[in-house]
């Protein structure tokens, strides 16, 4: 697809942003940007808006001098300060476009630092190359996940555990859902990354320097010894960390779509059953029935509703799969990322939809204008388009700055699907003329 010369109202973010969501999902892992101070501050602000949590991201705070003579001194000093100030177990170092372009050899600088600085030997330092201009936040996330595993996975004794890699950005509530599901299922999984507490911490009156929670480093090391890896949210993304574990340590890898909607959740449950021989717990079977019930309840309201769905690739695919199950009509399916596999998969799921990649909201709006769209579903960044076209917007995914509860939005599993069904239906009702009266009885 030919990219126009300007992007108007972007539908994506840059690579370092994605890396933070991985770093923060690892126990006591401090995110660190090698670049100018602004990148760290802007992304902290952006994440704080979404999660409503304090977010610390360190920076090497490169200045003009650093840009000219190289950023090694700043990087080393920054790492030292983070170790002394924050006491992290690990530091994830993401590069910015500045660091990449001035040509700093970050892995080399980090090795030097570890040789020079005794303090650094107790801390896992892993540099991730995330030049902002190369790809979107989704790719930054996946690269960071892969490097974390590459850095830490170590062969020892077979554990019989299952690696459950989260291949795309989902909410703390989604992660909690997975954690509880597997605890209840009595399956020992290594869930990575785990932002369920680090980005949604309880209020205790204290603010620890490193937020509690995250996947223990020990568990990441142990991913090499698991019986299998399942990556959720990797149907159209590079397989990344899971593939690495398979090639390097022979841990069989199953890439799956995000379990969003009935079919994708069935697929997920079936795959886990197959791997473990343990049937899905009965309560979750009941939950599945409850989802069907919810879908039946809302089916007429949602029938033929034409939608515009946009956002991160894997979430969008899950959403259109659910919409199809409900008899809804996804007419516009868009992502800001450049991802031909997504375009193909989306077109297959929604043959009549206009599928867009590398889209911005001016392009999405253009397509929306050309169609009768009744509901938009995606991050809050579509709000101006929605308001302008007077289309109700149901906010799903990251970022969501203008509503409460982004951290608590559950979209995974049968329960998440139920909430999506109810949410979409209620959004339509609330925005229809003539209020809610007409939908009270069974007549609709």
């Amino acid at each position, binding site marked *: 697809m030919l*990219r126009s*010369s*300007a*992007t*108007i109202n*972007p539908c994506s*973010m*840059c690579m370092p942003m994605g890396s933070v969501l991985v770093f923060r999902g690892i126990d006591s892992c401090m995110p660190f940007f090698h*670049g*100018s*101070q602004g*990148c760290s*501050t*802007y992304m902290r*602000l952006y994440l*704080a*808006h979404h999660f*409503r*949590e*304090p*977010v610390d991201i*360190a*920076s090497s705070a490169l200045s*003009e001098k650093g*840009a000219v003579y190289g950023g090694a001194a700043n990087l080393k000093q920054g*790492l030292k*300060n*983070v170790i002394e*100030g*924050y006491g992290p*177990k690990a530091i994830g170092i993401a590069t910015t*476009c*500045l660091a990449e*372009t*001035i040509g700093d050899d970050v892995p080399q600088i980090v090795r030097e630092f570890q040789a020079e600085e005794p303090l650094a030997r107790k*801390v896992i330092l892993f540099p991730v190359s995330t030049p*902002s*201009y*190369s790809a979107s936040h989704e790719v930054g996330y996946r690269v960071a996940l892969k490097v974390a595993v590459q850095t830490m996975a170590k062969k020892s004794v077979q*554990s*019989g*555990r299952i690696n459950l890699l989260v291949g795309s950005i989902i909410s703390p509530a989604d992660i909690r859902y997975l954690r*509880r599901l597997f*605890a209840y299922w*009595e399956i*020992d999984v290594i869930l990575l990354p785990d932002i369920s507490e680090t980005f949604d*911490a309880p*209020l205790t*009156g*204290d*603010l620890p320097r490193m937020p509690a*929670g995250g*996947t*223990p*480093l*020990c*568990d990441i*090391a142990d991913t090499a010894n698991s019986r299998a890896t399942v990556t959720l949210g990797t149907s159209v993304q590079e397989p990344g960390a899971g593939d690495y574990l398979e090639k390097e340590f022979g841990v069989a890898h199953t890439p799956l779509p995000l379990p969003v909607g009935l079919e994708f959740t069935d697929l997920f449950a079936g795959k886990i059953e197959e791997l473990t021989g343990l049937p899905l717990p009965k309560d979750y079977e009941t939950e599945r029935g409850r989802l069907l019930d919810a879908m039946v309840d809302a089916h007429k309201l949602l029938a033929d509703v034409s939608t515009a769905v946009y956002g991160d690739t894997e979430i969008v695919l899950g959403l259109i799969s659910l919409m199809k199950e409900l008899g809804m009509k996804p007419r516009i399916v868009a992502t*800001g990322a450049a991802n031909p596999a997504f375009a193909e998969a989306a077109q297959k799921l929604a043959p009549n939809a206009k599928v867009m990649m590398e889209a911005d909201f001016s392009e999405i709006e253009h397509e929306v204008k050309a169609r009768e769209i009744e509901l938009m579903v995606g991050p809050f*960044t579509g709000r101006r388009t929605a308001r302008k076209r007077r289309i109700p917007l149901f906010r799903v995914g990251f970022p969501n700055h203008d509503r409460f509860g982004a951290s608590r939005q559950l979209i995974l599993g049968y329960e998440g699907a139920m909430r999506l069904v109810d949410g979409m239906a209620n959004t339509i009702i609330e925005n229809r003329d003539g209020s809610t009266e007409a939908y009270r009885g069974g007549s609709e």
Partner: protein
Amino acid sequence: MIVKIFEGRDGHIQEKGSSALPLACGNESLAGAVSQRACVYSGARVVLNPLTDALHLVHGPVGCASYTWDIRGSSSSGPDLYRNSFSTDMKEIDVVFGGEKRLASALRALASQFHPPAIFVYSTCIVGVIGDDIVAICKKAEAEIGIPVIPVKSEGFRGNKNEGYKAACNALLRLIGTDDCVSKNPFRINLLGEYNVAGDLWCVKPLFEEMGIEVVAALTGDARVADIQRAHTARLNLVQCSGSMTYLAKRMEERYGIPYKRISFFGLGDMSDALRTVAEFFGSDGMMSKAEEIIRRETARVGPKIDHHRSRVSGKKAAIYMGGAAKAVSLVRAFQELGMDVVIIGTQTGDRDDYQKIAYIVREGTVIVDDANPLELKELLIRQNADLLVAGVKERFLAYKLGIAFCDFNHDRTTSFEGFDGMVNFAREVDISINSPVWRLPKKRTCRIKRRTEAQEAPGEELAAPSETASRVQAMAAGDAIASGGEDAPQLCDN
């Protein structure tokens, strides 16, 4: 030592009355310390972005544009082009071969699609490194399109926010003086450093108008390009946000002979002083008596409302952490009006003069901090026993986690705080946050049943054995978090 976290930060934190040395400031941020500062681009962007009918094009990768899209809570009375995000969305290929062509074609396409009266082109880090000549591109585009196309030299790494303010002021200077249409009203002023956040300007402008004064331009709140072009026709510049706009005021004084005065529209005292300052400047007795009349009337009108809130917050301790010093100083006075004590005051980018001024107005024992970071802010808030923090969004959740009330005084606020009504809003916001029952809810519930703790005590370095799962589930059913590696867990279990 007040708080000791990072080497080299000592001089930046002082308690008034305990040090003979001036506060260290104006340095580059310490790497790794998580400064709350942003970059040059950010400074330029916040100053220029409120220009409502201009097109703001970010020349750089998409991130810089994404994270600054509509983040300024500046309101508009009309156009809303400024609330869109335009960027050249540079990709790898542009970095390799240069982004000049992309920029030139973006300018052409955007000008023909949106017909803006002017375009600002912001350069980002990468542009500075690869050396795109945006000045030449803008010049060429200007000739071609026939509107001002103004380069903003805001490569992120070339300093801090202050450099960005300067870049923005230089960009504004390109527009100022390009329209000589002078109004008949002899009493013409500009409001510099007034950004109309949450409609602040609209609480203030009518007061000046009532005094017979014309506001030629607010820079840059709710401003249109045409206002800026006529800004040199004003006879007085009022400078509110001094950090961002003193530079512009000085240049306008040199170039057009317009004197400037520092004022603030925040707090009853400062607002009243601002009105008097202008009346005094124009030397009109009638205008001065009108000012006094407005001050009397408005103070009487809002007085009872503010009294109500004062009675609920007086004696409480406030902490202030602002981007610039002008707002911080104004806040100290406003807190005095509310009977509150300021126990911490800090800024991201204050200079030596600013901190001297601050040290002069706060009382002994107040901690003054330059370019603070989250760890220091946390320690200071606890040490000084603050009841309220006034700052921006990044600091909001830090305060909340510590159980401390918060008031947003930054881009994101949705309530106007300037003028007489603004002070009522501010007093109310301080009151409802400090006195909310949420702070008094018990942090812990008393549990009379003894908890099972095996799961919590399980050493983190041991691999979870299947038998452990059952106890994990039990622990969870009891409402506990699953232990995920104890306090003493090594970095990697098999190291």
